[in-house]
C-alpha cells in the first residue's frame, strides 16, 4: 500500500470510531432510536476489506453497518442524518442504523435479519453472472449467521453456479451474547466452507494491513476463477452487542485483553515504527476525523424531518 492510502485507511478507522462514539452519546440522549450496533473494535475489518475492492464490486453486510457505509464512501453527514432519521439520510430516514445503503457507492445495505442477506448476495452475483460481467459481491456477516439455513443455501448455490461472491465472516466471537463455541459445531468458521468444496482463508482482523492483503488475494481468486471464497476475519467488538446489552456473558478482563489489541492503536504503532509518517501527522488526521464528526452532527441536527408524504412514497415503484 502506498503511504497516502495507508493514511487514508487510518483516517477511515478513526472516523468510524469517533462517529460511533458520538452516535452512542446521541443514542443515550434519545436522538437516535431503535437498535444501534457499534463497530468499535472491528474497524480494521471493513476498512481493510473495502479498500481492496474495485469500485464496481458490490458490498452487502449485516446490521453492524456504520463503518462499512463510511468505508464505501458514504459521507459522515449522510450516515449521521440517517441515524437521526432525517430526510437527508441516504434512505431519507426510513432505514435507520441497521439499514445503511447507497447503491451509487455500491453499498447495498445494511440488513437486519441474521443471515437473510446471504441469499440476496448470491442473487447479486446471479445478476452479474447473467449480465456477463466479472463484478464481485462482497458479503459480510457475523459468526452467528453461519448457523442458520440461509448461510448454507447461499454458499451451496454460489459454489455450484460459480458465482463471484467473497463471503466474509467477521468472527467477533459472539452472536449477541452466545459465544461461538456455544453456538457453532466448529469454532473455526472457515471449516464450514470445506463442506462446500469452497476455497477459504483466515486472517487477523485487528491488523488492517493483513486484512487488506488477505482480501486482495481472495478477490483476485474470485475474479479470476469465477468461484466463491470464504474469508474468516477474526475480530472483537469492544462494546456490547447493541446499545442495550448488560454484557453478562463475558468478563471485563477478556474485553480488556482484546482492547490491548486495538486495531487503531496497532495501525498507529505500525505507521510510526515503519517510519511511514510522524505522530504529528497522525494527530492531525485524528483531529480532521473529529472535525468531520462534529460537522456531521451539526448537519444532521439541522436537517429537516422527512415530509409526512414520505410515509406513503416508495411502497411500490409503479
Amino acid at each position, binding site marked *: 500500500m502506498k503511504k497516502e492510502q495507508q493514511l487514508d485507511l487510518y483516517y477511515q478507522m478513526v472516523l468510524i470510531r469517533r462517529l460511533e462514539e458520538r452516535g452512542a452519546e446521541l443514542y443515550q440522549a434519545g436522538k437516535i432510536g431503535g437498535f444501534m450496533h457499534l463497530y468499535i473494535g472491528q474497524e480494521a475489518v471493513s476498512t481493510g476489506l473495502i479498500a481492496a475492492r474495485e469500485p464496481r464490486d458490490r458490498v452487502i453486510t449485516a446490521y453492524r453497518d456504520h463503518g462499512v457505509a463510511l468505508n464505501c464512501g458514504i459521507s459522515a453527514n449522510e450516515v449521521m442524518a440517517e441515524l437521526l432519521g432525517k430526510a437527508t439520510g441516504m*434512505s431519507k430516514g426510513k432505514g435507520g442504523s441497521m439499514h445503511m445503503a447507497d*447503491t451509487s457507492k455500491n453499498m447495498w445495505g445494511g440488513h437486519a435479519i441474521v443471515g*437473510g442477506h446471504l441469499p440476496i448476495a448470491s442473487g447479486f452475483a446471479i445478476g452479474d453472472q447473467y449480465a456477463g460481467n466479472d463484478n464481485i459481491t462482497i458479503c459480510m456477516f457475523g459468526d452467528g449467521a453461519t448457523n442458520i*439455513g440461509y448461510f448454507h443455501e447461499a454458499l451451496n448455490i454460489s459454489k455450484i453456479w460459480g458465482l463471484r461472491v467473497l463471503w466474509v465472516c467477521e468472527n467477533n466471537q459472539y452472536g449477541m451474547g452466545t459465544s461461538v463455541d456455544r453456538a457453532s459445531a466448529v469454532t473455526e468458521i472457515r471449516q464450514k466452507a470445506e463442506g462446500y468444496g469452497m476455497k477459504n482463508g483466515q486472517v487477523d482482523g485487528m491488523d488492517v494491513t493483513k486484512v487488506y492483503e488477505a482480501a486482495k488475494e481472495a478477490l483476485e481468486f474470485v475474479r479470476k476463477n469465477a468461484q466463491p471464497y470464504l474469508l474468516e476475519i477474526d475480530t472483537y467488538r469492544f462494546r456490547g452487542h447493541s446499545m442495550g446489552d448488560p454484557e453478562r456473558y463475558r468478563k471485563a478482563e477478556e474485553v480488556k485483553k482484546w482492547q490491548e489489541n486495538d486495531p487503531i492503536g496497532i495501525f498507529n504503532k505500525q505507521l510510526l515504527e515503519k517510519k511511514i509518517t510522524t505522530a504529528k501527522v497522525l494527530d492531525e488526521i485524528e483531529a480532521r476525523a473529529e472535525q468531520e464528526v462534529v460537522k456531521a452532527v451539526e448537519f444532521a441536527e439541522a436537517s429537516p424531518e422527512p415530509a409526512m408524504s414520505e410515509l406513503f412514497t416508495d411502497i*411500490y*415503484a409503479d
Partner: protein
Amino acid sequence: MAKITMREAISQALMEEMDRDPKVFIMGEEVGVWGGTYAVTKGFYDKYGAMRVKDTPIAENAIIGGAIGAAMVGQRPVAELMTINFGFSAMDYIINQAPKLHYMFGGQFTLPLVIRAVGGGGRQLGATHSQTPDAIFAHFPGLKVVSPGTPEDAKGLLKSAIRSNDPVLFIEHATMYQVRGEVPEGEYTIPIGKSKVQRAGKDVTIVTYCKGLELSMKAADELAKQGIEVEVVDLRTLRPLDMEPIIESFKKTNRAVVVEEGWKSYGVGSEIVSRIYEEAFDYVDAPIIRVAQKEVPLPYNRTLEQAALPQVADIVAAVKEVLK
C-alpha cells in the same frame, strides 16, 4: 380469439416476455431439464438454455433470495415455487424482504421480480401440500398479489407482472391448468390491480377469484336456470385491491356472497365483506355470506377433502340465503 388452456396461457406469457426482454430469466426447482412440474416451462430449456432457465437446488431461500438479489441489480427474474406451500420455507423473502426493501432504502432500487406459485387443494396431496394461503401474502404492503381465474387473465396479468417494477406473487391453481378459455390473438396485457365483472347480473353479487371463479360461474349457470341472475366480480389481484367494480355491483344488487378457497377466518372474504360494510353500508339489504374452506387441515381422503373445500352447491345455497 383462440381457445387455449391455462397452462398454455401461462407458458405463452413467459415465452413472449423472454423473447421481448433479455433481462427476463426463470429459476426454480425442475423448471429446466424436467420442463416444470406442471409442464408450464416444457421446451424452454432447449429454446433458451441453462443461463435463462435455471434449475435450482431444492432451496427456497436461495431461489427467492437469489431472485430478489438479481432483481435489485437490474435483471427481471421469474422465480417459481413448485407449490406455494414450499413458499413457507422462504417466508422471510416473500413477506419480509421483497415487500420492504424498496421502501426501507428510500427507493434507491427497484425489485422487478415475479414469484410464480402453485396453490390450491383438491388433488389429495395431504394437509401440507394443499393450501390456499393467499390471504397471508396479501396482508403485506409492498407486495403485489395476483391470482387469475381464466386463461385470458392469466396470460395478460403474468405479462404485466413480468413488466412490473415491483415484486409480484403470481398464484396459480393446481387443478386449473387444463381449464380452457378464449384468449385474444397477439400481444396484450391486463393491468394489475383491476377487478373485473366476469358475468353480469342484477340479483346478487358474487365476489371471488381464481378457483372460486370457476365454481361461481358454474353456480351462476345453475341459478340462472332457477331465474336468479348473479353478477360475478373477479378480484384477479388481491393486493392492491380494486373495490370499485364490487361496490358498483353491490349498490345495484344490495346482496353479496364472497367465495374463496382459503379458510374463512381472517381470510380474503373477511376483507371484502368489511370493505363493503365500510363503503356501502346504506345499500346492505341482507347479511353478506362467506363461502370458504372448512377450518381443518385438508385431509388426504378424497371424500373428506371435497367436504372441506367449497363446492358449487355451497355457493348456490349461499346465494339463496342472501335472497331470503
